[in-house]
């Protein structure tokens, strides 16, 4: 008898989900002007990307390209590179010093399985009552990485598994204050909100 009820439940469940899914299967169309707008952009970039076979007998990836950089762009690139190197320096030689307010450090030590690395995020704020870490590696979800006081006053830390590559993150202090890591490279989203950038290396590779 109980088995019959279970079987009926399962059938009802499937029927219920099917009703929901059927409603969501209704066709949707892109906006009428979509193709026109898209193709305009495609044409503006297309000739440079796909010049056609007749234009050269050299493979596209072997063709020489002239890249012009303004002095400002060059400086910006150099600054970017040194920021990445500086970040690696922090990872190698990080030591938590006297707790200044609002100092955060990202230490990248422990090795972990396969492609994931355990990254230790450290945040120093003697007046904080709680610190959370949000980033693209936890889908910016609050509550999934809460920093804990790690001994020294005002020093908060948490270790989080992160895949190699570029990641953005920030701290949420006292439940509401958004703080980008002051010691890491900064980036802004479309709305001007600043976050920090960490590049996690593939174990065994020197590239940042």
């Amino acid at each position: 008898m109980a088995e019959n009820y279970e079987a009926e439940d399962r059938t009802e469940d499937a029927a219920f989900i099917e009703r929901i899914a059927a409603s969501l299967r209704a066709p949707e169309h892109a906006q009428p002007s979509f193709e026109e707008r898209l193709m305009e952009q495609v044409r503006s970039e297309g000739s440079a990307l796909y010049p056609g076979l007749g234009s050269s007998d050299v493979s596209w990836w072997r063709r020489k390209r002239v890249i012009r950089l303004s002095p400002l762009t060059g400086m910006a690139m150099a600054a970017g590179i040194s920021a990445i190197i500086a970040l690696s320096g922090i990872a190698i030689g990080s030591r938590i010093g006297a707790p200044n307010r609002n100092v955060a450090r990202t230490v990248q030590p422990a090795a972990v399985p396969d492609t994931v690395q355990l990254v230790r995020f450290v945040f120093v704020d003697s007046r904080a009552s709680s610190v959370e870490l949000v980033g693209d590696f936890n889908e910016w979800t609050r509550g999934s990485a809460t920093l804990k006081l790690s001994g020294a006053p005002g020093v908060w830390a948490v270790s989080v598994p992160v895949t190699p590559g570029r990641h953005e993150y920030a701290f949420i202090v006292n439940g509401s204050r958004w703080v980008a890591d002051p010691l890491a490279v900064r980036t802004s989203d479309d709305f001007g909100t600043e976050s920090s950038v960490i590049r996690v290396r593939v174990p065994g590779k020197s590239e940042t």
Partner: protein
Amino acid sequence: MTGSSDAELIAEVLNGNIDSFAGLVRRHQDACARFAMRMLGSRVDADDVLQSAFMRAFRGLRGCKDPEHFGGWLYQIVINECRTYASRQRRREQRFPSAAAAIENAVAPGSEGEVDPDVGGHIERALSTLPSDQREAFLLKHVEELTYEEIAEITGVSVSALKMRVKRACDTLRGLLEGVYHG
């Protein structure tokens, strides 16, 4: 041009016939639009994501290793674009929690026992409350009707994790929508 296969259209584009890309757009835009709409819950957002996804596909067309399966490759790009978009949204919500709370309240399900004629609206609102990974898995499985193996290939998530996500999504939707259907 419409009779050409995806692989033929791709070859034409790579050979410099840029307008052939329009054939690929026409063939795939509606399927991608539906997924993006259901994922993001907004036509305008879906439109932005589609534009960005198709441009990424165009720029990376040489990276499409299997032109006969351009649709699957494009799906992968659309899913990634939706994830990036949702992630940005989430970041914005974390930055401005009061606005996020207002949005959450706005999508609360109808009161128990009430049968609303706008069942589709209820379903879309309930869908929007799911975590994005569960919503993605549910849509690919039950709306786009892909197999778990196909979804795993596209998303890079294991079959067992996908099954768990779909089950959780179904449980949540049932909890939110039972009142709507069974009054």
